[in-house]
Every structure is written in C-alpha cells, then in structure tokens.
C-alpha cells in the first residue's frame, strides 16, 4: 500500500496492538500499515510511548496483535504457531537497546552466540564452533579471546557487538533493531552504526531500524516512517523527508534536534505541550492537541496516510507541502 512494490520482504497490514493496564486499554499500535523492501533499511522514529517498540515486537510475533496481518516473504506470521513460527523466526532476528541486560550474565560469550544454533537444531558442535567463530570475527571481536569470557568483562559497545553476532549467527534475512545505539556513548555509537551498515551489506540484510534519534535514523535508513501515539504520521525517502517534511509533527521533531553549531541558535521552541496518554488518545488526528495547524476537521476525522510526493505519504489534513 505504501510503495507500489510487487514483492516487499515485510508487509504490515492494518496492525492493531492493545494492552490492558488496570482495566484500561492502552492503544499502543492503532492500525499501522507499512512495507519494507528487500535489502532496504526502514527507519521508524517516534518519541517514547508512541508504539514503535511494540510495533517491532508485534512484527516478530513476540507480542500478538489484536488484528491485522504481518506478511513476511508472503507468509502471514500472525497466523503461524509452534514449530512453523519457530522455523520462520530463524529468518527474522532482533537486537535490543540495552546490550548488557540482553546477555545472560552467567553464560560465556561463545555459548550465548551459539544458542540460536542449538535452538535451530544445528547438532554438530564443530559446525557450531566454526559459525560462532566466523560471526564473532565479522562483528570485530577476536573469537579466541572473547568466546570463553563472561558479559561483565565487556563494555557496552562490545556487548552490543556480541548481541549483533547472536542475531546474525543464523544468517537471518530480516533484523529488527530496537534502539540499538541509544545506550551507547557517542564515540562507540558511531562504531556500532558503521558495523550495522557493514553487516547489512555482508549478510544481505533487510532492517527495521527503530530509534528516537532522527539523526541516527537518517544515517542508516533508506526510508523513514514517523510514528506518533500508535499511528504513522509520515513515510518517505530519508533525504526527502528531512528536506521537506510534510507532517507538522515531523517538522517539530526535526526542529527540536540540538544542532552542534553555535551559529544556529536554537529557535525558542513553540510551546507544544506533551503527548497525550495512549489510554485516551485524542479523536481524529492524534497529533492535533499539539499541532499549530489543527482545526475542527482534525478533531472529527482521522487523517489517512495518502501519497503527497513521489514515495512520500502523509497522514495530515493540512500538510506543510
């Protein structure tokens, strides 16, 4: 629906994910549709609570959706269970935000990276050792030095390399990266972003790259989807979206980034308030309570994602372009 492509690797169709918290419903993902082409990186940005991580997890079926479809290479993951889903999971992997917390502190690096192979039924220990050795080298770690050590002996950046190795050891086609660098320092972040790009080429990956930092997302993404309170606001090619944002929320996000240049004095930000609660999202356009352009139509009518420029889609009644 988003890009006229006959054969996307991932197609998410009208996905709805809701949580129940204290008897109330959290509308985490409310009808999101998107496609990820083979070999591309789709960046997914939004602020905390916008549902971007929930969407990533629902794609991998780590969180089952209330309704909607997730088609991976033509197969509907939402309809799969048990062994079929487990087999499919070998082709899709996840990298988390906190690299240290996502490694079992009591297991050795070599075993942690070998675990997916064990689960996938690779029985030959020699083959497992070889594949662990290869993938650790690929992510820039010396297998002979690290395989026997425990996670606490490593820094956050190195632990993220281990997590990336674990995600890649089964040769997946698709990897969801959920804030993979936001826990890392600037100098380490650049190393990991470069590594992800390198791995993408080497392993022929397709990536869904979830982050709150627009500059980070732009650095690695071919296309970017902007999410706000459970819905997509705008989708488009990275450069086009940053040069000519169509949705007022995209523009606000871009404007809010602190630029490391003292000549670019920060514009006193418009008082735009805070995102409302996903328990009781606003009617109509969910961004309208913070939007300078909002009018009565925005309160009554949900804006649908529609094409505006080549490849650029926006869900807004009063787009900026």
């Amino acid at each position: 629906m988003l890009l006229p492509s006959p054969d996307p690797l991932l197609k998410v169709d009208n996905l709805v994910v809701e949580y129940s918290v204290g008897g109330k419903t959290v509308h985490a993902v409310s009808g999101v549709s998107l496609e990820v082409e083979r070999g591309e990186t789709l960046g997914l940005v939004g602020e905390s609570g916008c549902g971007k991580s929930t969407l990533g997890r629902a794609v991998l079926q780590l969180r089952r959706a209330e309704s909607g479809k997730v088609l991976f290479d033509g197969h509907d993951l939402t309809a799969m269970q048990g062994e079929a889903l487990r087999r499919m999971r070998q082709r899709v992997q996840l990298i988390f935000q906190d690299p240290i917390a996502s490694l079992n502190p009591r297991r050795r690096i070599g075993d942690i990276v070998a675990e997916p192979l064990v689960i996938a039924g690779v029985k030959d220990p020699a083959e497992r050792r070889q594949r662990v050795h290869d993938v650790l080298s690929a992510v820039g770690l010396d297998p002979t030095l690290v395989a026997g050590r425990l996670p606490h002996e490593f820094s956050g950046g190195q632990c993220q390399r281990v997590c990336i190795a674990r995600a890649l050891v089964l040769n997946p086609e698709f990897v969801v990266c959920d804030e993979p660098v936001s826990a890392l320092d600037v100098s380490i972040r650049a190393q990991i972003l470069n590594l992800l790009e390198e791995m993408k080429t080497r392993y022929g990956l397709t990536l869904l790259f979830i982050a709150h930092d627009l500059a980070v997302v732009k650095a690695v993404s071919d296309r970017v989807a902007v999410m706000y309170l459970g819905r997509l606001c705008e989708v488009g090619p990275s450069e086009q979206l940053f040069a000519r944002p169509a949705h007022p929320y995209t523009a606000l996000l871009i404007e809010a980034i602190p630029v490391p240049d003292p000549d670019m004095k920060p514009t006193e930000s418009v008082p735009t308030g805070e995102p409302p609660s996903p328990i009781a999202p606003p009617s109509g356009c969910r961004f309208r309570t913070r939007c300078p352009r909002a009018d009565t139509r925005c309160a009554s009518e949900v804006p649908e994602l529609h094409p505006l420029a080549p490849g650029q889609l926006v869900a807004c009644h009063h787009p900026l372009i």
Partner: protein
Amino acid sequence: MSGVLLSVEDALVELPTPRGNLRAVDHVDLTVDAGRTLGIVGESGCGKTMLSRAILQLLPKKARLSGRVMFDGQDLTRLSPEKLRKLRGRSLAVVFQDPMTSLNPVLTIGTQLIETIQEHLALDLAEARKRSVELLAAVGIPAPEQRLAQYPHQLSGGMRQRVAIAVALSCEPKLLIADEPTTALDVTIQAQILDLLAREQRRRHMAMIIITHDLGVVAGRTDEVAVMYAGRVVERAPTPALFKQMRMPYTEALLAALPKLDAAPHTPLPAISGRPPDPTRPLKGCSFAPRCRYAAGRCNTDKPVLSRAETAEHLYACFHPIETTASGRA
C-alpha cells in the same frame, strides 16, 4: 562587571575500588563567572558527574577529594555539613538527570516546594504557597494550583523535570548545576526544558553549569565549554571559539562521530576507534593517545597540561593540536 562566582582549583577525586584507586577527576581547574553558563561535555565515565558532585560536596562517602572549591568567597571543602546544607538549595542548586532523584515520591509537589522555600527563606505558609504557584507557572506547568496537591508519579517525565527545576529555582540560586537535565526526556520535551533553563537563567541572572554528553546541547546554549576525557579537562574555550576551531583531537573526533542531519544516508561515520582507558589504570602519557590519529612520540610518555592557545581564553591539553591555518572547521 561580573566576577568569578565559582572556582574549582586543582580538584582531584579518587574512589577506592576492588581493582585499585579510581581517579575520577584528575587535577581539574575551572571557573564560572556570575550570570554565565558553562557546558561540561564528555562521555560516560569521563568524570563530569563526579566533578559536579565535588562542587556540590555530594561525593560518595568513600571518595577522597583534594583541591579547593571556592564558591561565592567560601571554600566549600572546608564548610561544616550544617553550613553546606544551608547553602545547597539556597544559593547552590542542582537538577539531576532523573527528576525522581530529587523529588520525594511520597510527598506532594506542594509540600516539597513549600518546604524548600520555608527552609531557606523567611516566608509564612501563605506566602510560600503563593510563591510555589508562581514558580510552577514560570516553569510552564499548566493549572499550577491543582498541581500542588499532586504526587510526582501523577506527572509525566517532562513535567517532573519542570517541578525539579521549580524546586531548584525556588530560592533564587546564584549557581544552578544541571547534570544531564534532558537525557531521560524525549527530543521535543528536551528542547522545551533547555529553553526553560535558558530563559530562567537570563531572567534570574544566575550562573549555570550544564553537564551533558551532547555537543548539540552546549552549542547553542552556553558561553563557555569544557570538554572532559578520562577525568581531565582536555579543552576549554568560549563556545563560539571552540566550535569554530577545535584544537584537541578528541573534541574534533567527538563532533565528527555525531550523525549529521545534512549528510546523505549510509555515509560512514568517522568513528573513534577503541574505547576510553580504564580509570583504575592511568596511562603515563595523554589518555587519548591510544585512540588518537595524531599521537606520536611523547604523547605516550608525557601528560600534556591544559595550556593557552593563541587566544587567552582557548585552552587545550595536546602536544599535536589541530592546526589553525585552515579557516575553521572543514
């Protein structure tokens, strides 16, 4: 003409650890003039938070501090706990990264504000209450009257940070230390909080230290920047001068490693290889030398001291500073 409000002289902070002494702050000198804003920039473990805690005299019990912290004519390292308590909150205030560090979860916003005000200023309850409402309004909290009866958990992260700022500003401090005040917040909220801090700083003529890992945060909002690496200040300059011409290779590398909004997607980032040295195993030479592409000869054997560049205000600690011949940044 404004004078020196804070002067940190040869501050050294050491923490005993099972692996040996960890030198968190290594001979740091800093000054902040009244009404000015200093940005302290560095990555985790560089000692920026320990330095701010040394200024506030809020170091962990086991930590050893030497050197002087002169604030408003007094050496804080020699003040009694009682006098320090009077000073903190009154003329020396702090805002932490996580607002729940400074807010009490079981007291209402009103109680916490009114208590702080009455502790330090001679106001009766009605006056303190009125002032609390004014402060909440000043930091951009809607319906401030009603908020007084609410608890911190009833507010969003951004609103909590506004309350923490209101508490910090309540007694008109001379110096506000903001330690990563927006790191836990979303980008649109970050911009609002930074604007708020800048506005209140100007309005109240207070001095401010913003501690951050983000060069973007200090660029538009500080008068001077000190860059820290491995416990030391490695470059210090007025903000425009620093961004126009970085002399210390670490500062330059840190800026280069940031993804740029105007760069095309998939542009490889000039990453800094390796990682910071183990603070319990200090290096003989420059701490950045193992990661520095300009390092040579005595970089590995001698420690460069922070010294003047061509202009009196621009200091850097480097034997092979980046040449100034080029017209500013590439």
